């Protein structure tokens, strides 16, 4: 891919920083310590005291959180605690919302994505996104996949890239005879895999997924979970999910968010606990986490 080189540049420049920033972050928050003795993989993305506002509404307060390379990080928490809001900060999708304002830093290989000279368009070519509801374009299956590479100025063999992306998304066999047909003719689960294929066709570094299975049946869900496991060898994945079992099944680390109701009645989300998934689900450090994962609220 043509942006491959620039990505390597960004990475190389900040390799050291990424590994260094990891320690202070986890140490800063004694209630959110990433346990375990195995050295964690390099940090790709890192939130540093992130605050998000929608107009006057303080939606998310002081979230600091590292995302490790080639891992699946799950964001869980009750509805309205700001999971989507946080996720959308990773690739500056919040820029699309007129009222949204972000404070703090989102470091990508040590570069603050909210620095003034950063182009969100470039950011999103490195950090792709899959949405809650499958949202294929009203175009053919082929053109859906080819869209990202085309606008990115891809100069290689588009047919091969489309086939490869669909194969990686475990969809190729089902659609290989109807690549020119409308993507709307696919089932919901197929559409979501198409959206995943579309996201990886631009060869991103990180893939963000906002409840990618919530519109799907259990079998389609399982397929997407398997897919995530396969994709994590090549990508770093951050997933928002409402489904506790899903988080436990697929993720390596889990961040639990909760809502705090302020004096003015504002429901502000914050990070309660962040740790290896096994630890969060077997031995959470916080009472709220335990109550949430055992289904006592949320």
């Amino acid at each position: 891919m043509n942006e491959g080189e620039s990505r390597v540049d960004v990475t190389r420049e900040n390799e050291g920083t990424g590994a260094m920033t990891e320690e202070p972050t986890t140490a800063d928050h004694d209630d959110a310590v990433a346990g375990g003795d195995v050295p964690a993989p390099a940090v790709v993305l890192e939130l540093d005291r992130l605050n998000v506002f929608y107009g006057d509404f303080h939606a998310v307060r002081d979230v600091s959180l590292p995302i490790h390379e080639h891992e699946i990080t799950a964001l869980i928490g009750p509805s309205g605690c700001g999971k989507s809001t946080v996720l959308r900060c990773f690739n500056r999708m919040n820029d699309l919302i007129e009222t949204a304002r972000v404070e703090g830093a989102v470091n990508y290989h040590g570069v603050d994505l909210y620095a003034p000279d950063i182009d969100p368009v470039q950011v999103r070519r490195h950090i792709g996104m899959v949405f809650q509801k499958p949202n294929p374009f009203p175009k053919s299956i082929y053109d859906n996949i080819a869209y990202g590479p085309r606008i990115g100025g891809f100069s290689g063999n588009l047919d091969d890239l489309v086939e490869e992306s669909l194969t990686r998304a475990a969809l190729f066999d089902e659609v290989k005879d109807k690549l020119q047909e409308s993507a709307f003719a696919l089932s919901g689960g197929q559409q979501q895999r198409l959206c995943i294929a579309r996201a990886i066709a631009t060869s991103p570094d990180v893939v963000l997924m906002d409840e990618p299975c919530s519109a799907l049946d259990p079998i389609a869900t399982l397929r997407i979970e398997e897919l995530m496991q396969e994709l994590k060898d090549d990508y770093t994945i951050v997933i928002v999910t409402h489904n506790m079992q899903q988080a436990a099944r697929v993720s390596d680390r889990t961040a639990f968010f909760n809502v705090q109701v302020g004096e003015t009645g504002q429901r502000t989300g914050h990070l309660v606990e962040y740790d290896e998934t096994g630890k969060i689900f077997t031995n959470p450090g916080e009472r709220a986490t335990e109550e949430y994962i055992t289904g006592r609220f949320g």
Partner: protein
Amino acid sequence: MALTDTSPQTMDLTGDPKRLAREARVRRVFLAASVISIVVSVAIILSLVGEAWNFLTKIELGDLNENGWFPRRGRFQILALIVHTLVISAIAMAVAAPLGLGAAIYLSEYARPNVRRVLKPSLEVLAGIPSVVLGFFALTFITPNVVKNLFSSASQSNFLAAGIAVGVLIVPLVASVSEDAMRAVPTAMREASYGLGAKRWHTSLRVVVPAAISGIVAAMILAVSRAIGETMIVALAAGTNGIMTLSPLDGGLTMTGAMAQLAIGSDQVAGAVAAFQSLFFVGLVLFFMTFALNVLSERVVRRFRNKY
């Protein structure tokens, strides 16, 4: 009403007769309204058809192929009127399609809400300019200052000036119908595009416009039909030449222009064979053209309607 005499303990599920009667009256009022409008339309069409038939029986069919449109002299070359109408409509669309679509894309995809709050009403003001004003504007401003500056050979009354003015007239129509179609495209579609690293113009032109294409095409067709039917501008600025010409720098009668002339009476001669009735014939042709266009736009919308 068989249950009205049931004992008080039984639930009475029958309607209050008064309410039912009122309901029925209201229904009849609305029915009458719709029937009257249909009857009026049918009556208009029938009278058009009747008079047009009268006209056709009074003339030789060959008169429709005579050179030029000169009703007083028994020359009824309807083709000349149609060609002139199409020339003006083409010029108008050449102005209105890019401007209207551009404005729609800007309003729907680029403008911040407060900018849109100012711009959209201004567009509607443009839509509210009486066409007689635009016709006068074409004659006294566009022709001398624009057309004659560019092409000194242009006649005083010319299709170019009239077409530009008609274009200005229909820009708001193109813009507002296209913008509605584009704003109906779900945000999820835009997010998908931005999420793939698309710039705004990519998203606008490659995702939103194709997704809204049925509405946009319908807007264009409606605009053509509006341009074909526009009368005042062409009556003022396109001239009265009845000889068929394709040159935008010449002037000439369009279908509506010819009808206006006949209706005003400047071409009406007592006892002239069929001259006055030709108005209805032209009207009928015009009606079929705009009717066909409206049906076409309906079809387009239904055929290509996206489920998203």
